[in-house]
């Protein structure tokens, strides 16, 4: 934390792409991943380019991940829950450009 006076909430465990990841209550999924050094939250459908947090406030939808089975969920707006399933589909459908 940036200031000793600030203590994040209780520890919870997320399952990210099948692997457990420790996070603290109150954190967003994006921040829980950032805290572990993970900046790439998804790859784009067409080009397969990496994307991460951009606006961090729910406007740009660039941080969308599949969270608890729901694709297109904003990692910057979703607070962590114990046992939450997060996946980052690296697979993408190469779209033929005519």
């Amino acid at each position: 934390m940036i200031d000793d006076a600030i203590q994040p909430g209780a520890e919870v465990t997320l399952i990210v792409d099948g692997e457990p990841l420790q996070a603290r209550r109150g954190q967003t999924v994006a921040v829980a991943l950032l805290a572990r050094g993970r900046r790439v939250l998804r790859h784009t459908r067409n080009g397969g380019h990496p994307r991460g947090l951009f606006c961090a406030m729910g406007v740009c939808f660039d941080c969308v991940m599949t969270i608890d089975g729901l694709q297109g969920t904003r990692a910057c707006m979703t607070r962590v829950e114990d046992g939450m399933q997060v996946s980052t589909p690296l697979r993408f459908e190469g779209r033929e450009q005519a």
Partner: protein
Amino acid sequence: MLTRADVVVVGGGVVGCAVAYYLSKAGARVALVERSVVGSGASSVNPGSIAMATKKGGTVLELARASQRLHEGLSAELGTATEYAVEGNLIVAESETEIAYLEELAAGQRAVGVPVELVDEQRCRELNPLLRGRVLSGLYCATDAHANPFKVTQGFADAARNRGAQLFTGTAVEGISVEAGHVTGLMTSRGNIEAPWVVNAAGAFAPMIGKMVGATHDVVPRRGQIVVLEATDALPGIRVSGASQLLAKHVTAPADGRPHRTPISLSYTRKPLSGTVLLGSTNEFVGYDSRNTREVVTGICECAARFMPELGRLNVLRSWAGLRPYSSKGPLLGDGGGPAGYAVATGHGGDGMALSPVTGLYLSRYVGRDGKSYPVAQFLQDLKADSGAVQ
């Protein structure tokens, strides 16, 4: 004077642009007048369906078949990728009445050589594994297709312009000038256009243009609402719709009293290139109101989630509403019933995109024959003869 032309086309939707293209290709000097921008009306708010399975037999189906053949070669013809793709089309029946209706449809379609088959419940679910709701049987057409309506519209506009057509957008029609029973030009907000021919391709707004020359057209706006879902991987590409919608579409004319609830049935289209899913549309007679409604937007979602529960998890990204030019007589092509030199190309209902190439081609020949009677049946025969000659 704004300009001088052989033909002035009113309306920059997919039909108007197609008419402008084929006329230009035939050597005419064409001016096109559009009050907004190209493709801003119903042409940009439809799923781009090129379907035979949804049509009763007869002339409209034959026009649609001829049009599909033109769509197949359209990317090459226009030099623009129209994203034409054959994905197949399945219409499902929920009741005995609907089964009987599908059988009747299939008979008419087979009579003109459309390769449709009646399939049982299990085959329906195999064709589109998302289907979970009540399905008894279906009508399947493997050759049905779709294209990107915006690309088709823009492709026609670009190609028309490349052949010398002038496109005046942001230009409103103020009147049609007529002398001695013959059209002499069009008055617009940006000046007059001298031309011996005016083609009214104003879609649902065609009656207002017709009024300027005292012609009445059997066209009313029919609203269609569509809901668009987020792009997904690996969903079936085959189009699926409920027979109840077709029944309503083919049987219902504008009623005096509006039904209490808007009929909503399943309609699923997945665009292969973008991966988005389109749900809808509806057939509503509510005048010129082109807004989405709470009832229909939520109703389309309810219907989709009931028939295809997997879709319930997806995000809705947007909804649209478009005003289609509905005519109880089917497409109105050629003679507009007004002065000499006044022609129409409207009344396509929800088939404007599908029928645009054949409409453009017909109008170019009708105008080329200087308005002499040219029955659509004869045109279709001529087309067959032409393609025979090419082969």
